[in-house]
């Protein structure tokens, strides 16, 4: 054992095969880096934590959807979400997220595919780097544009793996690199706002920044811009919820028209990077990889755990390097934060249901667009704010006070929306009848 350790220490990488920028198959990379590859493959594991991880639910495969295991449905856990997303594909099928190994299948077979989804999804649900290169004949940006414009089924044919080594690493140096044009553009816009012009992420980011940026290529709020369906991160005014909303208001974007109220609403999606940015860990320079891919001692050296997952399944490596508290105590700290977030989310969803009911009642009482405008705008705002925390996957942990602040603001928007409706007089009594039963 000691002998082996000494040897390992001298020559940590056995270069068994030559890797090039065209080596897409992670199994080949795995020949050089067996530890990383082994842990990478373990993202198939499904283990539930109190609010995260995922549960492996068996299902009977069909021709249309050959998956034999899926994660639990969020819609079943909380039917209010169906009302929030009424009229949008998310109300058909939304599940808890699970490991990277499933990303390609989950995007391909989600019930949301009942409405046509664009190829642009696959920017984040596959190892798309090689596809960009071949479509763009070496020019990533050009390839990206063509890729976005494809229908899902077409794009799907061009990709083979979930996110793979080549998407995060330079095959020669193994250094981290950014391969996603949407992030290159998004971070450039964000840095420009912070006074740094012409930011080139692959040249200018520090190593520690890269340990978050590689994740922020996908774990971010996004929209598809225009007919070209260009995947775009709405960051030119900043990454706080109000800044992103201001961006959407300015460009006049909506995801869909709410089926029950007619409001022009937005869907927030996994703004992990954005919420983390507002938290104390980001401020202290703690990167996504520090908690989700902590170092793991293998023999004489440390390797990054490529089994990307909930840190609650790996507390001692993920947290105890920095926090000398017992594992149970650390879990309790996380739970305290998440319970608070979860309770507020509940409260905010109830408030939203009330506003939606009031808006419906006002519509059936015959009030027109102009009269409802103010309340509809509050609906748009409130819903986006709630979804910003709901769709974010840490249940508030990435920035506890900020998550609570956003939900507090959302509740106030619901209140103001309901108040605006009152001016319209009688007929707007959607929830009045049920209000007496609402628990405090």
């Amino acid at each position, binding site marked *: 054992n*000691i002998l082996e350790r000494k040897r390992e220490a001298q020559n940590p990488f056995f270069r068994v095969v030559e890797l090039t920028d065209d080596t897409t198959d992670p199994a080949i990379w795995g020949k050089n880096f067996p530890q990383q590859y082994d842990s990478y493959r373990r993202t198939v594991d499904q283990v539930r934590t109190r609010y995260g991880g995922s549960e492996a639910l068996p299902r009977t495969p069909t021709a249309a959807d050959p998956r034999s295991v899926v994660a639990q449905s969020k819609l079943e856990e909380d039917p209010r979400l169906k009302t929030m997303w009424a009229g949008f594909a998310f109300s058909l099928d939304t599940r808890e997220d699970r490991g990277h190994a499933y990303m390609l299948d989950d995007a391909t077979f989600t019930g949301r595919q009942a409405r046509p989804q664009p190829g642009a999804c696959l920017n984040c649900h596959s190892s798309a780097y090689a596809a960009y290169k071949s479509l763009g004949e070496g020019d990533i940006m050009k390839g990206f544009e063509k890729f976005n414009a494809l229908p899902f089924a077409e794009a799907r044919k061009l990709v083979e793996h979930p996110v793979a080594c080549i998407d995060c690493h330079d095959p020669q140096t193994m250094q981290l690199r950014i391969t996603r044009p949407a992030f290159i553009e998004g971070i450039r816009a964000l840095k420009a706002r912070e006074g740094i012009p012409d930011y080139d992420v692959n040249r200018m980011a520090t190593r520690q920044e890269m340990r978050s940026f590689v994740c922020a290529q996908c774990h971010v709020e996004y929209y598809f811009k225009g007919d070209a369906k260009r995947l775009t991160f709405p960051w030119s005014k900043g990454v706080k919820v109000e800044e992103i909303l201001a961006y959407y208001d300015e460009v006049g974007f909506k995801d869909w028209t709410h089926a029950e109220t007619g409001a022009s609403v937005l869907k927030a999606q996994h703004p992990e990077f954005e919420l983390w940015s507002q938290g104390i860990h980001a401020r202290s320079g703690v990167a996504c990889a520090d908690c989700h891919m902590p170092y793991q001692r293998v023999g004489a050296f440390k390797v990054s755990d490529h089994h990307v997952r909930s840190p609650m399944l790996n507390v001692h490596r993920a947290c105890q390097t920095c926090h000398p508290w017992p594992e149970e105590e650390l879990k309790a700290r996380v739970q305290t934060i998440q319970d608070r977030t979860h309770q507020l989310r509940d409260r905010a969803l109830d408030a939203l249901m009330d506003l939606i009911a009031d808006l419906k009642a006002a519509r059936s009482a015959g009030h027109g667009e102009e009269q409802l405008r103010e309340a509809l705008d509050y609906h748009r705002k409130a819903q986006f704010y709630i979804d910003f925390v709901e769709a974010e996957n840490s249940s508030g942990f990435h920035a506890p006070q900020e998550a609570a602040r956003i939900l507090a603001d959302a509740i106030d928007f619901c209140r103001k929306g309901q108040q605006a409706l009152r001016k319209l007089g009688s007929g707007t009594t959607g929830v009045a009848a049920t209000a007496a039963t609402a628990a405090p």
Partner: protein
Amino acid sequence: MKAQTWAGIAVGAMMGVALGTSAYTFLYARGYSYLTEDPRACINCHIMREQYDSWLHSSHHAVATCNDCHTPSGWVAKYWTKAQNGFWHSYYFTLGTYPDPIRITERNRRVTEAACRKCHADIVHGIEGPGGAADPAQRASCLHCHRDVGHLH
């Protein structure tokens, strides 16, 4: 803590094996250098590297070596601690099953607290409280505020 729990089981059943492997470690991995005051003795085990590296940048680099903080004063106590720690160090290292990240044990924490007081008795006299350093419930814990003086973790 873990070490203590293990002690009961391990010392009886596995003493032979452990002593064997330890002896091997002691010689081959230059465990004997452990008995000196030279901090480089500690980094014969790469596992101590992190502490060593950050000790080099610490406020105590010029004034205290590893053993100043991690062994009690007095010849017997010192070598008894070294022997004990050395035993567990070699044992875990050879079997490769030590905790990761490594955490200071309760006993060694007390040793370290005592080391702080040994050098800084004068300056902390006023804050030691009436029970002095005797009653743990009445003692200020230096590490509560100064965890980082020897090295970051």
